[in-house]
């Protein structure tokens, strides 16, 4: 026996199969959810470096090329945890697919390589920071450039007295001559320089080269010695007789950002070009 089926009449509305209608509504809802969530996930494309050059991030030592780095980084922050100067931060929502991926902001806190052994590289569980390098001078993070020569104190023939940056600046550095193991805020040091050479004297590569020249390679390991210079002050001769010097970046620069961090001018006269490496310049 079949149930009576109401037939469409000219006066009444067409019959509605409630189950079918609900199934259809649910299908549409589900399709909406599928498109919605997948759509949101693709918003991660928007802030990528290739779409917006200014969002390029300085990556930790050993980082693979940006695309490979973002692919292989598992966004766990183990590199953050081992860095003695707490230089590494993790990307956020506005980094798109770089959400959770490690980066440095050189001006705030550069890498000073004082761990010697590239702890972040050793901590990386995926090799997004490649395990093929072991020493600071093998790193290719970027390349320093004197972006605002007109601000550079050395070029103006000026010295530097007092604290680097200002009293509120939190950037840290491990000065081997003060304390090998504890990073101290750079603001704790007073400088009195006849001609400003803060960038050169804070360059981890130059510090290492000097230690090696003195016969004390970092961690007692001669392999730690960088073969090439990274930065030096060279005389500027403008015929005025005043002593002026200019920082010159050499092939040994790895782009750690220490010079940018300590540059006392505002904005920093020397900056890191993230998309450049020693080989590419």
């Amino acid at each position: 026996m079949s149930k009576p089926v109401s037939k469409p009449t000219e006066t009444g509305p067409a019959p509605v199969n409630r189950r079918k209608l609900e199934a259809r509504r649910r299908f549409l809802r589900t399709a909406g959810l599928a498109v919605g969530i997948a759509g949101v996930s693709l918003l991660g494309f928007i802030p990528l470096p290739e779409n917006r050059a200014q969002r390029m991030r300085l990556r930790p030592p050993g980082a693979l090329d940006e695309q490979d780095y973002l692919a292989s980084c598992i966004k766990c922050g183990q590199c953050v945890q081992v860095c003695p100067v707490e230089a590494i931060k993790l990307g956020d929502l506005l980094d798109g697919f770089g959400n959770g991926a490690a980066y440095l902001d050189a001006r705030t806190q550069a890498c000073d390589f004082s761990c010697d052994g590239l702890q972040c590289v050793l901590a990386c569980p995926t090799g997004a920071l490649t395990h093929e390098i072991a020493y600071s001078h093998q790193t290719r993070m970027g390349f320093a450039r004197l972006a605002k020569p007109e601000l550079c104190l050395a070029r103006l023939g000026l010295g530097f007295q007092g604290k680097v940056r200002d009293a509120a600046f939190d950037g840290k550095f491990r000065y081997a001559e003060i304390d090998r193991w504890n990073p101290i805020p750079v603001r704790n040091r007073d400088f009195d320089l006849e001609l400003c050479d803060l960038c050169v004297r804070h360059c981890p590569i130059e510090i290492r080269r000097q230690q090696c020249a003195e016969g004390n390679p970092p961690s007692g390991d001669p392999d730690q010695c960088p073969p090439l210079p990274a930065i030096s002050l060279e005389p500027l001769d403008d015929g005025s007789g005043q002593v002026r010097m200019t920082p010159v970046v050499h092939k040994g620069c790895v782009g750690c950002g220490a010079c940018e961090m300590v540059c006392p001018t505002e904005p920093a006269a020397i900056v890191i070009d993230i998309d450049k490496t020693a080989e590419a310049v």
Partner: protein
Amino acid sequence: MNLFFESLAQLLGRAPRKPAKEQIKPAAQTIHFRKRGEKFDAAESAAMHAAHKSNKWRNRRWITLIAVNLLFVLSFSLDIQLLEGALTASRFLGFHMADLNSALQVTLAFKEVLINLLIGTVTIFLLWWLLGGRTFCSWVCPYHLVAELAEKIHLWLVDRNLIKGYDFHRGVRTFFYVTFGLLALVTGYTVFEFISPTGILSRALIYGPGLALIWVGALLLFEVFVSRRAWCRYVCPIGMTYGLVGLFSPMRVVYDLDGCRHEGECRKVCEVPHVLEPVLKGRATDASVPIGADCTRCGLCIDKCPTGSLRFEIKGLSKLL
């Protein structure tokens, strides 16, 4: 009926099927037959539930979940280095551990098998294979905990007719699983990690909050006002990955048909009620039926059951003891 394939089909999103009579084992048939003549007094059932108030497994689970996440947080903030990293990948006392789904996304995006990751993946696979697969979801995932709270608000609102809850087709989770896999493969980015509330919350707890929490908040609002436990039920590929592990896991919830009064209270508290299909009258295919792989082993149903018809079991171990 093959329980393994039924479990897999349900995990992928198919609705549970009513077993044919010949698929029901004689032991279960006898009990079903007996129960057909029995009338369960609803008032008596209600009294049993009122007398049986237990949060044993929920409390154990919440303590575990908070302890694990706290261990991550303290390992970094106090520098005790027991459990370093975040839920996506970590080191426990120096041993590599990698979330299976995060490792999968990275491998698909990077298209290379990374050795350390492989070690961590095998460790975690063995761990969650032993512990039951989606056990990760309810016992470790921090999003699960906040989603449970959102669920309580949602149910409170629905109860008072202030809102209407909507459901979706569960098959959409399989769609997401394939889609996020393909997106990683094609784009070369770990697209899912961008929106994974598990990763975002874990990192926010350990490294400090960020803007990404806005997305987690939006998901929770959606679950409060629109759809109960939507992320865990319909979207999360992490749950799917661990569900696939759970297919083979010896650790599971088991349903005993004999003492059950079929009130259905267990299904009301369950995040994935389709796995509790056997508790419906006449559906159990055996006197004892293991619950499927989509089960998160959260134990809410066990807490709820006044007759002890649901219990945890480690396959093989009970026979051994």
